[in-house]
């Protein structure tokens, strides 16, 4: 029942932030960020289990491990970018949040380049010359 | 507030210590009371050398003269000498201790009882009388106001005259000035140059008259004595109480001008005898006449070498001519009160050194 815990923390933090926000917005922001990080860390433990399972499956089905690693990296980048962007957005900096998201997209694309290249190569081989 | 407030002042000794370690050793030695009161008002740097003087010099000490940046001088037994920091006495001024500006400031603070502002009258007259009856003459820059002396500043010269109470001197001359018929003293003028012991003599006379004598030779009743003490020298009052023994039936007006004081004394205190120091002004003469008319006997002193000198001074001449004084006591300078006393009658004829009933009829 971890969700109950998380919701409870969320409620409490919300109240605390409401109390602090009008006098010290700075501290309210820090509290938000702190809580966000806390929940994220909590979730990471769970995601770790998922990733382990995925790795196991990939090994058994003899998929090229480079692909899986790249895939996981992309997921990681997506998570980090999402987290960063949301935190910044909480502080009201929409513009910065957008830039972080953009950076995440581009980096994902960069990561994906080898895979795309491999796919195109395979397609070229399949097509008659 | 703090609950712990110290009552003791242990660190005060540190103030006196430092570079003048043995400045106050006389306090432990148990100095003779006369000199002790004098040393009490001297800064440690000056009291030390004086206290280290030889016993003989200390006993005959007459004056301590302090001049800023110049040698410290003492006058004793009619002689003088300069005093070094270690108490060594010499005629040469070169090895002597020279009081600093700080010494002088401290001295003026001490002799004025830390209250120079209360001494304006005394400053105007040029001297301050300290506890023990010692008179400290002061010299400095005089500040004038509309032509009269207002006060003195930049005080840099002091002359401390050691007052000594010599009991019994009066007993030797009292028979000569006693009026058997009226059972009182005659009008008497004591004449001498400064420093010969006039004041000491009249003080002792006041004491002797006030006590009277009820046994032994020359018995006499105790008289009511009034001392008019303009310079606080006769009785040396400290806070109104005489520091010398001037007798049980004696009243003292302290610090009052002589003429006014005599009038006040006549009106208020009904004395048998008025004792007054150093007369010579015209108001004094008027007051003396008043006293004589009221039937009060007067014992006064005046500056002068001898009979002729006194008879030549306008006010005194007039008083003597009017027959106000029937006895003149002349003291000689060099011998102090121990000798050199001549007693004259009102017209300047010497009496022989014994009670003289023959002169009784001349009493006014």
């Amino acid at each position, binding site marked *: 029942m971890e969700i109950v815990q998380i919701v409870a923390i969320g409620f409490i933090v919300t109240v605390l932030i409401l109390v602090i926000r009008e006098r010290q917005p700075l501290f309210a922001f820090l509290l938000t960020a702190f809580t966000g990080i806390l929940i994220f860390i909590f979730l990471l433990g769970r995601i770790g289990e998922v990733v382990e399972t995925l790795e196991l499956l990939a090994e058994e089905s003899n998929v090229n491990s480079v692909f899986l690693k790249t895939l996981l990296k992309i997921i990681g980048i997506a998570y980090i970018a999402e987290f960063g962007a949301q935190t910044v957005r909480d502080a009201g900096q929409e513009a910065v949040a957008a830039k972080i998201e953009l950076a995440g997209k581009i980096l994902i694309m960069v990561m994906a380049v080898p895979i795309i290249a491999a796919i195109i190569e395979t397609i070229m081989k399949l097509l008659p010359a | *507030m703090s609950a712990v407030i110290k009552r003791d002042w242990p660190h005060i000794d540190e103030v006196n210590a430092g570079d003048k370690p043995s400045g106050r050793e006389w306090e432990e030695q148990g100095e003779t009371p006369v000199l002790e009161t004098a040393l009490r008002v001297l800064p440690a740097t000056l009291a030390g050398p004086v206290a280290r003087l030889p016993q003989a010099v200390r006993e005959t000490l007459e004056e301590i003269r302090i001049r800023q940046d110049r040698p410290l001088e003492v006058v004793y037994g009619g002689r003088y000498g300069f005093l070094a920091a270690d108490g060594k006495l010499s005629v040469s001024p070169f090895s002597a201790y020279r009081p600093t500006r700080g010494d002088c400031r401290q001295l003026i603070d001490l002799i004025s009882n830390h*209250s120079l*502002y209360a001494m304006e009258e005394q400053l105007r007259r040029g001297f301050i009388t300290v506890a023990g009856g010692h008179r400290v003459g002061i010299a400095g820059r005089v500040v004038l106001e509309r032509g009269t002396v207002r006060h003195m500043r930049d005080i840099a010269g002091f002359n401390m005259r050691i007052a000594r109470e010599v009991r019994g001197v009066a007993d030797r001359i009292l028979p000569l000035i006693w009026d058997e018929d009226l059972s009182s003293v005659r009008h008497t003028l004591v004449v001498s140059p400064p420093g010969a012991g006039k004041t000491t003599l009249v003080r002792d006379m006041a004491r002797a008259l006030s006590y009277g004598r009820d046994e032994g030779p020359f018995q006499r009743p105790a008289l009511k004595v009034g001392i008019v003490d303009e310079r606080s020298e006769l009785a040396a009052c400290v806070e109104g109480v005489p520091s010398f023994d001037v007798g049980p039936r004696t009243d003292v007006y302290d610090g009052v001008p002589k003429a006014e004081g005599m009038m006040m004394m006549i009106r208020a205190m009904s004395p048998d005898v008025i004792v007054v120091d150093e007369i010579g002004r015209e108001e004094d003469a008027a007051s003396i006449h008043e006293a004589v008319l009221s039937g009060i006997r007067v014992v006064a002193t005046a500056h002068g070498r001898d009979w002729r000198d006194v008879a030549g001074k306008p006010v005194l001449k007039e008083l003597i001519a009017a027959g106000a004084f029937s006895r003149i006591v002349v003291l000689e300078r060099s011998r102090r009160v121990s000798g050199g006393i001549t007693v004259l009658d009102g017209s300047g004829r010497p009496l022989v050194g014994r009670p003289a009933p023959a002169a009784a009829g001349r009493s006014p």
Partner: protein
Amino acid sequence: MIKLLGAMMIMAAGAMLGFGQARRLRERPAELRRLVMMLQQLETEIEYGCTPLPEALGKFARPDRQALSEMMAGIASLLRRGGGVTVEEAWRLSVDEYWPCTSMNREDREIFVQLGTVLGTSDREDQLKHLRLTAALLKEREAEAAEERRKYEKMWKSLGLLGGALIVVILY
């Protein structure tokens, strides 16, 4: 449990610090006023009574043993003891002794010590001038102290408590 005890002790210490500061602020104007009153009394003694300094100062001795009266009485007793002590020395010694027991600050002290260097060393008018000057300076400082008290007394009280709380929270 021990942690809680420590936290409470820190809170108490902070609160005491704050209250102490507030008390100093509260007492300073009152003490300055008393000092000015003493100087005025001294002024009267000098102007009309010509009372010698040891005696005039001795009159301030009270049975309540407040630091200021004790200070004045201390000067008087030093002067009476004799031994070649000047007013300036006695003044400084006594002030050194008792000033830390009062709530007045160093500048107030400077003004007061300055008076000691001139007291008793000049004629009456000059003395009165110095006394009045010192009294005026101290009065000025009294007004200042009252203003300061109004401004900062509450602040120190809450600040002490809050500071204690802050330390507790940070270390908890």
